[in-house]
């Protein structure tokens, strides 16, 4: 029960805005203005690399190494973008990354939600033991398993396949734990009423439990999607064919072939980084909340 208590405290900040705000508008005292200046300077420092990447990607190739440094080249051009786009690989990797991340997220959410429901709402011999076994898995970092997992993939013939990248990323015990904590806090009355009305287990799960859990499922999905989209080590190990690489792996793989074409390197980085940033711009609140919940409760 203590677990669900933690979950509720985690939920509070999102729903009730800032507690400290207390409703009144803050005054602009000299101290606060000083804080604002510090915060703006730090913001500038954090945005600087991104701004540089974008600025460089818009320069003509010949202007990128010119000294002294200037933010703009002799003209603004999208040459680098069209060159990178035409080379084709980037599109392939983008599609690979999208497919792999969507599939992994979908499978993770479905299998973990079902498992968590099974652990909280059913009873069978060995349930506690199994749950203990799953929880113990939280302490096993996937990075420790790369050698045996790779050999297993060779044996299963899954090297250089989408499934080879996806499957090892699906069973995340921490996500089961988060969902179990959530289900424990959901009252059973609704489900009971449905049982009385003759609904089956499966229907109750999909039509009552899943819709009720939308926020926590969204949090799990967001967390899974981001970590899969950005995962480097495993896709890097299990794909050797450039046509099957994910975006991060493909980029690192070809970095040397760019040579000193900085504008093109930066254009490809901008294209690679943009999708998640756009998603973030639209779903800032949900993503922030999802990370804050899963981040602490999940580890």
């Amino acid at each position, binding site marked *: 029960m203590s677990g669900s208590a*933690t979950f509720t405290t985690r939920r509070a900040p999102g729903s009730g805005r800032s507690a*400290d705000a207390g409703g009144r508008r803050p005054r602009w005292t000299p101290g606060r203005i000083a804080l604002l200046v510090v915060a703006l300077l730090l913001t500038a420092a954090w945005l600087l690399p991104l701004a540089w990447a974008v600025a460089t990607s818009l320069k003509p190739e010949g202007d990128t190494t010119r000294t002294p440094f200037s933010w703009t080249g002799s003209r603004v051009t999208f040459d680098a973008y069209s060159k990178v786009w035409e080379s084709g690989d980037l599109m392939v990797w983008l599609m690979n990354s999208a497919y792999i991340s969507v599939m992994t997220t979908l499978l993770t959410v479905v299998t973990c939600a079902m498992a968590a429901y099974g652990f909280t709402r059913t009873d069978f*011999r060995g349930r506690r033991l199994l749950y203990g076994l799953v929880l113990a898995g939280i302490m096993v*970092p996937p990075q420790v398993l*790369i050698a045996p997992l790779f050999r297993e993939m060779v044996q299963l013939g899954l090297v250089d396949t989408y499934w080879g990248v996806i499957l090892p990323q699906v069973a995340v015990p921490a996500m089961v734990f988060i969902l179990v904590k959530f289900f424990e806090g959901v009252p059973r009355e609704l489900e009971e009423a449905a049982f009385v009305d003759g609904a089956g287990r499966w229907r109750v799960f999909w039509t009552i439990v899943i819709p009720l859990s939308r926020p926590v499922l969204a949090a799990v999905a967001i967390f899974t999607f981001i970590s899969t989209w950005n995962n480097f080590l495993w896709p890097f190990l299990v794909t050797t064919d450039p046509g099957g690489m994910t975006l991060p792996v493909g980029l690192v793989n070809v970095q040397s072939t760019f040579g*000193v074409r900085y504008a093109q390197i930066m254009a490809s980085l901008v294209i690679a980084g943009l999708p998640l940033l756009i998603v973030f711009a639209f779903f800032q609140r949900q993503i922030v909340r999802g990370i804050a919940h899963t981040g602490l409760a999940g580890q």
Partner: protein
Amino acid sequence: MTSTAAAAPASVAKPDGGAAGRPLRGVRRKWTEHGLVFIAPFLLVYALFLVWPLVSGLGMSLTSENITGSGGEFVGLDNYAEAVRDPDVWSSLWNTVWFTVLSTVPLVVVGLVLALLAHQLRVVQWLWRLSWFAPFLLPSGVVCLLFLNMILPSGFGLADQLLATVGLTPEIGWLTDERYAMLSIVATTVWWTVGFNFLLYLAALQAIPAHLYEAAELDGAGTWKRLLHITLPMLRRTTGLVVVLQVLASLKIFDQVYIMTGGGPDESTRPILQYVYQQGFTGYRIGYASAVSYIFFALILTVSLVQPLLSRRRAEEAAK
């Protein structure tokens, strides 16, 4: 299988199983039905891709196996004995720990400072979240290639050019000089992932009850006093968790080093995971690589075991 199991626990049924003492036998039975069916898909993937590699890895670490699966002879603890005597294991373990120490401190402190700033200012929250958290959403490949190109071309990179505008031409080999390579990787990591700790701290700050501050204000406590006597103490358990999570994350360093320095110069930045990779995937000694993995795992486990203690305390405090 489920039905036989269902009969027994029915009597142990959950306290809220048959609400208000109604003898809803059918409903009660429902609660015990099909448990394994729900858990099976997860268990299958879990067993195949986590439990089995964990077990088979342990087995492999006792053999002289190479990556194609041939030549696997049982060698007992030879691999472990070799690893303990292997200076490369020790140096890469040291690099890993050193990176963890160097990165954890700024990642936690800067994360806290950024969160305090954002929370205190209360305005344009989207801007703080965007600039400090957004880098976390970039793949390691993007971040590392960006920083690589910012600092690498000596004299031409953004870092050197910015220093030149204020009259400094230090000609530092940011990634080629042993004194700076690790620090450059740490700086890249801080820029990239501090947003995660920032968010955790921000959520914790927003969960501090407003009445504590109101009471303090009535007592005439100023901003600093409130920070010292309310905010920081209230953040103690969050800090404990953030530190443990950060240590665990930093110990798993691979991407940044592999992409930015390849472990150099002179192996001075090579972390233990990269050594496992080199032994197993480019040196084909997968048995030995497994043994080194298990030594690394032991290190991770030691740190993880500190965490349940912390979270138990957290739960107790939350229950108060």
